[in-house]
């Protein structure tokens, strides 16, 4: 059976991740413990969720720079809401998700109606969301609620003491949901179509406006969900949290094999992109000898290495085909 060339970038991503894990494992045998695997999933849960939203945005040829700020805003919003009102966290979640989804939809609307580049609209969105977080509070607000305790302590103890936490499971579910939406619905098909060429998509009958609004609303929803997960992860809301997360998410999506120009990619690839970013972090912590500045340099170099490897693999496979 021959492999469809469409799958090459995805396979390359997964292959490189496996290879990288192997290299890490040979250096630190402990890397293969369920504990490390569980940590990898839990620690990157919020990133994975937001990256799924980002994948759809990038598939449509857009970009969403606001997500990092939206995560911070979400945490602050929930924390303040729980502190100042007697709402149940679930109600707070519902309100928050409505707010962030509407925020995303509004950005999508501006992008479409005013034909403004997504980069700029979401950049303004990034300032706005963080500014809104500041206006709610400038301090970090702890979340104390019995329900949060339950959420925090919900995990499945894997053999070997690793924990598969609730938020990790939420992340995996988000990936599955994202994959189904992107690859198995008409909405997803429209997203790919817009990424392939907006004008063409329009002529093929895509409702570009509605789809654009939907895409950014989805990203806003995912950022809100990621904010919830992050607030569970840290039991607090902090307006300065997750600065620059949008760039990490974009990098993860790109490493996951999605083209930044839009129209080609897989949500599953994004999961591996996120895990790769997490692996780089873990490796650096395990190593523990890098100074602050070398940490930055090494992260950059590893990022470049992954991208080059991926391109190399793709070139080789396209030559063979």
């Amino acid at each position, binding site marked *: 059976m021959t492999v*469809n060339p*469409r799958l090459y970038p995805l396979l390359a991503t997964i292959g490189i991740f496996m290879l990288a894990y192997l290299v890490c494992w040979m250096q630190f045998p402990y890397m293969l413990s369920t504990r490390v695997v569980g940590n990898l999933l839990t620690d990157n849960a919020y990133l994975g969720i937001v990256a799924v939203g980002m994948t759809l945005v990038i598939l449509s040829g857009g970009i969403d720079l606001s997500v990092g700020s939206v995560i911070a805003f979400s945490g602050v919003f929930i924390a303040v809401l729980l502190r100042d009102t007697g709402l149940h966290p679930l109600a707070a979640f519902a309100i928050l998700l409505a707010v962030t989804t509407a925020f995303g939809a509004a950005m999508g609307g501006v992008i479409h109606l005013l034909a403004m580049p997504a980069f700029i609209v979401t950049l303004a969105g990034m300032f706005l969301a963080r500014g809104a977080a500041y206006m709610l509070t400038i301090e970090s607000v702890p979340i104390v609620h019995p329900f949060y305790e339950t959420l925090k302590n919900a995990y499945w103890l894997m053999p070997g003491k690793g924990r598969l936490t609730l938020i990790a499971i939420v992340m995996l579910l988000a990936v599955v949901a994202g994959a189904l939406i992107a*690859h*198995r619905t008409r909405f997803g*098909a429209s997203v790919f179509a817009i*990424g392939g060429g907006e004008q*063409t*998509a*329009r002529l*093929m009958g895509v409702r570009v406006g509605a789809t654009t609004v939907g895409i950014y609303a989805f990203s806003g929803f995912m950022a809100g969900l990621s904010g919830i997960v992050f607030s569970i992860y840290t039991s607090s809301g902090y307006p300065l949290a997750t600065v620059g997360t949008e760039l990490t998410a974009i990098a993860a999506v790109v490493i996951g094999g999605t083209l930044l120009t839009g129209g080609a990619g897989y949500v599953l690839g994004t999961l591996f992109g996120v895990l790769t970013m997490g692996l780089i972090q873990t490796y650096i912590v395990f190593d523990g000898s890098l100074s602050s500045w070398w940490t930055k340099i090494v992260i950059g170099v590893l990022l470049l290495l992954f991208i080059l490897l991926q391109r190399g693999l793709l070139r080789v496979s396209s030559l063979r085909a």
Partner: protein
Amino acid sequence: MLLSIRSLSKSFPGTKALDAVDFELKAGEVHALLGENGAGKSTLIKCMTGAYRRDSGQILLDGQPVSPGTTSEAQELGIGTVYQEINLLPNLTVAQNLTFGREPRRFGMISSRAQRDMAREMLAGYGLDIDVGRDLGSYSVAVQQVIAIARAVSLSGKVLILDEPTASLDAAEVRMLFDILRDLRDRGLGIVFVSHFLDQVFDLCDRLTVLRNGCKIATEAIAETDRLKLIKHMLGRELDEATEEERRKTTAPHEERHEMLRFDRVGRPGTVAPFDLTVRRGEVIGLAGLLGSGRTESAELLFGVRAAQSGQAHDEAGPVDFSNPRAAIRAGFGFAPEDRKTDGIIADLSVRENIVLALQARRGWTHPVPRAEQNRLADDYIARLDIRTSDAEKAVGDLSGGNQQKVVLARWLAMNPRFLILDEPTRGIDIGAHAEILRLIHQMTAEGMALLVISSEFDELVAVSDRIIVLRDRRHAHALVGDEVTADAIVRAIATPDAAQTQTRGAA
């Protein structure tokens, strides 16, 4: 009346593209929409199908006023369309393109197996044997064109609109398409057909409407019109077709011409098998072959777009470097590519800037072409090639398809190359401009320029070429010289394969 359009108008900044146009389409007819480049055919189609917002006018479908605001609304009304430039999405699979908007679903989710089945069903009858799970972009222009037609056909409950569907198809495919169209017509569909090939119009259509400068000139039954009358409608004047006959007689036999360039064993594995080519001053070499036979790729090798992995070139002065386009240009080559949208025009730049671009690139950035010189060149070629534009500062992307093609030609003529490669130079060009371009070819060769022309129209090739090379399966299989240069000979050369080899079409 199935579809009637009353007094439809549309202006763009600086142009009145449609001026109170009426148009009527009956059920069960094929109606040709004709006109010069820039006459407004594509604009009319786009206004009809909701891709453009019209300024004024009425559209009636089955007597009911309709106003499709988006193309998807038009599709829901039963109007299927193949647009001229933009067809399908190269990043989606063939199946996704074909079923787009009507994907079969199970439990709300698209079932990709059912989708592929549906796609294969839609393609049945078009003689394409391709893997519908592959990206559309991996197939040739012709295959994509057939897929676009198949999609539009299946979308057209009542009306099917085809804007130059045959521009990149070869004769066999055109025949097959026509069979399908006749069948649809007999089933009561109304079909709008745009083409610059008048033979096809007379072969297929029942009635025709001619547009000129955005105005409707005439609607007539095919039976009541003839070629000359039609051309007169389109151009507003008679066309002088005599020149073509003249030429072959006036030029010297090609052996006596001065040899200018010699390519030895140029080739690239997986692209085109190594071939030799001798180019003489003032001669026209035609490249013939079926779609996918490697004509474009041969041209790309000669111009360095794809680096040749073997072979070299010589002229009197010694070896010639053609390893990349810039080197080839320095060596005096020129290349007007096949896909003008992605490889030819710079859409947002003006006509003037597009024309001087290559010249400027060769002179280097430190030696800007003076503005007066730029204006002179632009005005000169706008006049010589009859480029229809409001002025030289209009963005090329806003010109009609045929006029964009002329701008690309003008760019290379302005370079005055010694060896110019034209890949499908007359694709999408109207009959007046077609004659104009052939005349230009003659004029250029008379001044000593050598040409390599690729065309799917054998008659056109025969008309211009001194020599024709026939390609088959990515090999230069045959050369026809002198009296052998006839359309029949080409067809025969293509059809008699070297025993073992069989023709494959479609996926390369």
